[in-house]
């Protein structure tokens, strides 16, 4: 078991003929993902490494039964690409694109209310259920299939670091996903935590936050009220100065809100196992999750 994607997920790639789209479509397919279609308007009828390309998401879904989309469309057109996936009633859209204007994402987010599609991202590394399906740009090889740990993060390479440490400790992962570094994201920590809570294979969760917004605080409160599985938390940006955007559009302390200290405090108050030192994260997880393994 895993969350959101598994070995039955059928993936299409929006922007498959672009450089990034091509490269990562191949990587995903090589990992074992069922990449069944690509979409590039005007290139319908072509093939990319044997993967059929369509002019629209709707057509691709109809012809190939794709139910998840990986989006590599440049920022000016990415919001519309997400809306096209929503319009085609996809189950999942994973938007890798970084740099989408925030007003575009406000509109997308509001337009998705009440719709079936789950959006992961944008500005995210994607999602992987090790051994089953990878939709995103993360290196597949660092993952270890079979659980028992779920990983959810706002970051990219920092997530790989976390996963790598888990794998080094022999702790496999059920699903790892980055929800994205932008202020507006489709899927929240709480959405993922809820899914992990319901996933029988997941025994514990690592949650990797960073400065900016209050998603970690909200998640911590949710965990205290709803989560029975242990959660290890880490926050990046303790040393970040206020008022500066630390790479990610969403990683900024402004008006005294969104500090790492406040997030860590919220985690501690809500019985999350806080990891103070990134170097020790794997070992801490080993301790905590070993206790709960059945």
């Amino acid at each position, binding site marked *: 078991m895993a969350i959101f994607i598994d070995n039955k997920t059928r993936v299409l790639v929006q922007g498959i003929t672009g450089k990034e789209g091509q490269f990562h479509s191949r990587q995903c397919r090589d990992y074992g993902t069922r990449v069944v279609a690509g979409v590039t308007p005007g290139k319908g009828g072509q093939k990319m490494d044997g993967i059929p390309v369509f002019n629209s998401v709707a057509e691709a879904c109809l012809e190939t039964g794709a139910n998840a989309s990986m989006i590599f469309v440049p920022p000016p057109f990415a919001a519309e690409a997400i809306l096209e996936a929503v319009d085609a009633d996809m189950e999942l859209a994973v938007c890798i694109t970084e740099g989408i204007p925030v007003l575009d994402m406000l509109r997308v987010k509001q337009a998705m209310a009440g719709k079936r599609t789950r959006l992961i991202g944008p500005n995210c590394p994607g999602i992987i259920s090790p051994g089953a399906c990878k939709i995103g740009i993360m*290196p597949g090889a*660092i993952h270890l299939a079979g659980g028992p740990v779920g990983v959810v993060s706002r970051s*990219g390479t920092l997530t790989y*670091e976390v996963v790598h440490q888990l794998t080094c400790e022999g702790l496999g992962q059920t699903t790892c996903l980055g929800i994205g570094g932008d202020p507006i994201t489709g899927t929240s920590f709480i959405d993922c935590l809820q899914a992990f809570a319901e996933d029988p294979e997941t025994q514990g969760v690592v949650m990797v936050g960073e400065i900016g917004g209050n998603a970690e605080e909200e998640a911590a409160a949710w965990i205290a009220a709803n989560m029975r599985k242990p959660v290890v938390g880490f926050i990046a940006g303790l*040393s*970040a*100065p206020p008022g500066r955007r630390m790479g990610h559009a969403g990683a900024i302390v402004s008006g005294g809100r969104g500090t790492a200290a406040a997030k860590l405090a919220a985690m501690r108050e809500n019985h999350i196992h806080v990891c103070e030192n990134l170097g020790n994260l794997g070992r801490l997880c080993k301790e905590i999750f070993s206790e709960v393994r059945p």
Partner: protein
Amino acid sequence: MKIHEYQAKELFRQAGIPVPDGQVCHQKEEIPALVASLNLPVAIKAQVLAGGRGKGGGVLLANTAEEAQVAADKILGMQLVTLQTGEEGTEVKTILFEQAIALKKELYLSMLIDRERADIVIIASRDGGMDIETVAQQTPERIVTVHVNPLLGLLGFQLRKLIFDLDLDPAVKKPFTALVKKLFALFLDSDCSLVEINPLAITADNTIMALDAKMEIDDNSLFRHRKIAATHDCSQDDVLEVAAAAHGLNYIRLDGSIGSMVNGAGLAMATMDLIKQAGVEPANFLDVGGGASAEMVENGFRILLSDPNVRGIFINIFGGILRCDILARGVVSAARKVDLSLPVVVRMEGTNVEEGRQILAHSGLNLTSAHNLNHAVSLLTAMVP
């Protein structure tokens, strides 16, 4: 991207939002002619991107031409220190002469993105001229907030809430409503992440006017706002940050002594935190992006070495798909090109990590491989005595 008050006011003017008459001045020599042409009294305002200008002496009022000349001479070229500039302050390269307005009431009005609710929040208060965070803390009941769904736009009941809760005089309702609508349209049209008018003046004759204007444009949207993007004033940015941006590097200068070069923003922040945990201070945030090519590493080195405070460097690259032998060769070649002499700790991860370490060890350069993050931290602790 922040823009100057006078630039924001120009956008206001184009959007039909009333602002006082004003004149911009960049050169000392222009002052006398401008002063002669002004209606008095006049405000002289330093155009800097940092807030808190008034307390720092960056805003002065002049009742006579002589006073205006003195004030302008004083402000233009001064090193203005505010809470947001740091101790060294920032040089005032532009001033705004602005007609002083007779007002009977000051309001506060701002619009910004609410990331939790994914909408646009309008914040208003009867206490114009005051810092809104202070008002929020001390008299939260005097603050009105309205959340606007960008798909629906401003609705009548939302405008009414502002008017009722601000307890506006009936005579002001119409101009206030018009102003809020125009400002909201400007917010959307210009992809703002923030607009703030503090104070928003109600004048003696019940017109309404933006006396100050703060505006931030979403960086991600600049591709569709070329005109605004072109007005960006780099002169107030850190020179290294400007140089880094020109290379597509995401760099922020800090006060410490250990430079870092990382791929990925989250890992870069976490790396700064590790440096601090090692007992030293990070000199910067530097995200070279997911790819981490030799060229990026070389440019990163150049930026880090331009900071005289840097006494050691920590490279933390989680390659994943990237092969470590290729990365190591890139680091060595870049280090040679920039004639690197500072000690460097390299922590890398990816395929062929052992070969990569060998390449670093045999490079003859001051490059030390860390086996993992904790090892890197101990190496950093040792690096700077």
